[in-house]
């Protein structure tokens, strides 16, 4: 189900047709797929967070502005990196954008290499985020496969308790603890206590 390896798709949202089309042209010149959107609404209509890519967003637009769109994406818990493009260095706007988690804030017209580098970096970041999210999802699914008793045991194993202590704590036999422990290691697909502890820490339960 992961799309992390899918070819990236770059989105450009700008009300200015010349700018929109030329950006896509530039981006596609390095072999990246680019999709131009006339407005924030048009972009949202076909929004899909699964595919790696990034969003080049004009900060000032009629209708929903660039900053408005960023907020919408945040609410949707999107990981799509947003690179803001502005025609005029507007410091307060840049600060707002960064605070809201913008990947970058570029002034038009900007150096094509800088732009493309940032796009590539954003794509890589998105890939990483997507991969991370995929991994978390999988680990969560494994944890969900554990029985309640197994989860209690796994929790205590991760925190460094010995079998004898766990048996005493849960009021069960040491032999039973060992059996659950074996099942946990099997279901969680780990072969060491260290690995189990790492996953347990990663997935905040």
């Amino acid at each position: 189900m992961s799309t992390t390896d899918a070819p990236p798709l770059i989105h450009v949202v700008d009300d200015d047709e010349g700018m929109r089309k030329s950006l896509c042209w530039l981006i596609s010149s390095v072999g990246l797929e680019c999709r131009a959107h006339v407005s924030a609404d048009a972009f949202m209509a076909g929004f899909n967070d699964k595919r790696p890519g990034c969003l080049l967003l004009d900060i000032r637009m009629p209708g929903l502005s660039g900053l408005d769109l960023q907020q919408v994406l945040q609410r949707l818990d999107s990981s799509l990196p947003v690179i803001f493009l502005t025609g005029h260095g507007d410091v307060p706007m840049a600060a707002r954008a960064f605070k809201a988690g913008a990947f970058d804030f570029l002034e038009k017209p900007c150096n094509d290499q800088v732009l493309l580098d940032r796009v590539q970096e954003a794509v890589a970041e998105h890939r990483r985020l997507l991969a991370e999210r995929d991994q978390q999802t999988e680990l969560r699914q494994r944890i969900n496969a554990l029985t309640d008793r197994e989860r209690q045991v796994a929790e205590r194993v991760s925190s460094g308790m010995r079998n004898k202590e766990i048996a005493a704590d849960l009021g069960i036999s040491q032999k039973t603890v060992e059996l659950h422990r074996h099942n946990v290691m099997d279901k969680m697909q780990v072969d060491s206590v260290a690995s189990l502890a790492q996953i347990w820490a990663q997935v905040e339960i």
Partner: protein
Amino acid sequence: MRAWLWIFLALFGIVLSGVASIAAPTASLTIGVLAWRGEEKARLQWEPTRATLQAAFPEYTIVLRPIGLKGMEAALAAQELDFFITNPGNYIEMEQRYGASRLVTLESVRVGAPAASVGAVIFSRSDRPDIRKLADLRGKTLLGVSREAFGGFQIGWGVLQQAGIDPFTDMAGVTFAGFPLDNIVTQVAKGRADVGTVRACLLEEMAQEGRIEMDDFRILNPQHVDGFDCALSSPLYPNWPFAKARQTNHVLAKRVAVALLKMSPQSKGGMGQSWTIPLSYQPVTELFKSLRIGPYTLSAGQVFREFLQRNKGWFLLALALVILAALHVWHTEFLVVKRTRQLKESQEKARLRLAELAHVSRQTTLGEMARGLAHEINQPLGSISNYAAGSVRMIKNGVSSKQLEEPLREIAHQAEHAGRVLKRIRGFVDNRASPRKQANINALLTEAIDLLGAELRQADITVQSRLAQDLPPLSVDGVAIEQVAVNLIRNAIEAMAQQASGRRILNVISERDKTRLRVTIRDSGPGLDADALERIFDPFNSDKSSGMGLGLSISYSIIESHGGMIYADNNPDGGLSISFTLPVDQGNDE
């Protein structure tokens, strides 16, 4: 033909000489006598003189030729007279014109005493209290013998003239009763005329005859001359002269004079008529000069010159007035020209000042619009940059030139777009005082909307233009009118800043209103309160955070200078409308 003429002339000459030779032996002396009371009376009057001369010159036939005033002149001109007897006035005329000279002066026996002088009386009835002196004669009627009568009018006329009264203009009327002179006296006595003038002594003669009472008459301007016993109103003038014509022999004339001087009133056949040594006729000359009669009758030119001379002061004054008036007119004209020029200059100055202010205002406006304009230029520049960079990469990757066609076309398109924006900005700010030219108001409005395109988009304003298509071209300063539109639209943009996005609507309307065009910029903002509405076109009246607040004030001046009006009002459904009108050319382009 010529021979016949000579023969005719020769015959005519013989006839003439024949006549002369026949006339010679008769040897007559012709005496012209002024027939002032008819030929018969003249013959009778001068018979004593003729008889005296006939007795003294038996070798001549002495002939009396009664003659009128006109006849006298004609006879002297034709040298038909040897001697003549006439009145003093006629004499001096003949003296002047035909070189006549007096030999002796008549001596009249009046009221017993002989006198060589004549005078005149001016009289009224004694029971006229309103007539006491000459000055009282203004507005009264005067009776005389005739205009040509010397004692019977002219002397009296001279007296009045001397007193500053022109009987023909200052009195109610002058009537001439003709001869006999007695008529004048009886007419005045009957009250048919206010005053009369006759020769002196006539009243006394009539009184002696018992026909009047002296006490019934008042003598005006009474004069007294020793040896002259009659009532008198005038100076004395010499009596009638006996004169010789120019061509009459001097020796003969002398002999005639001696013969006449020997006549005495008492002498036999003298019948009271006598002649004395010739008096000076200079007083008569003076009188005639002052009355401008006889030889001193003036021609029209002379009259005018005389008039000028007499009224010199008035004429100089009138001339001075005319000159002053001319100077005044000239000065006024000069002032009008000067003031007109000054007015034109000051109007031109005001126009230039407004143009300069408008220019500065446009620069300020552009400054305020800089962000939007920069964006407007940045967009195509960025676009070009993107296409170019992308194309370079694709060339490196070895794409076909066919694939580069689109970006290159786009680059050209974007460059043009940037150029248009720059041109628009330059057009807006370059012209200081552009001359009025034919302009399409809709084109100016569209240009203004385009210039503000970036601002309008960024402010998320929907522009709804409703431009009438049948508008006539206007003769205007296009840049200035565009500036007005820009100012009004920017005002609308600011007015709608607080409005919810999506409800920012700008209406730009052009329409014809009779002889005017009207442009309305309508926003959907909050509108203005009455106070703000009243001060909207005042300078420096701005609650804007940016700008000087001069935009609307300058717009007002610009529209006013185009003969139009600008006004603002709240819309019934919210928001503010600012409209301006411009007069439509009536077919003539200024």
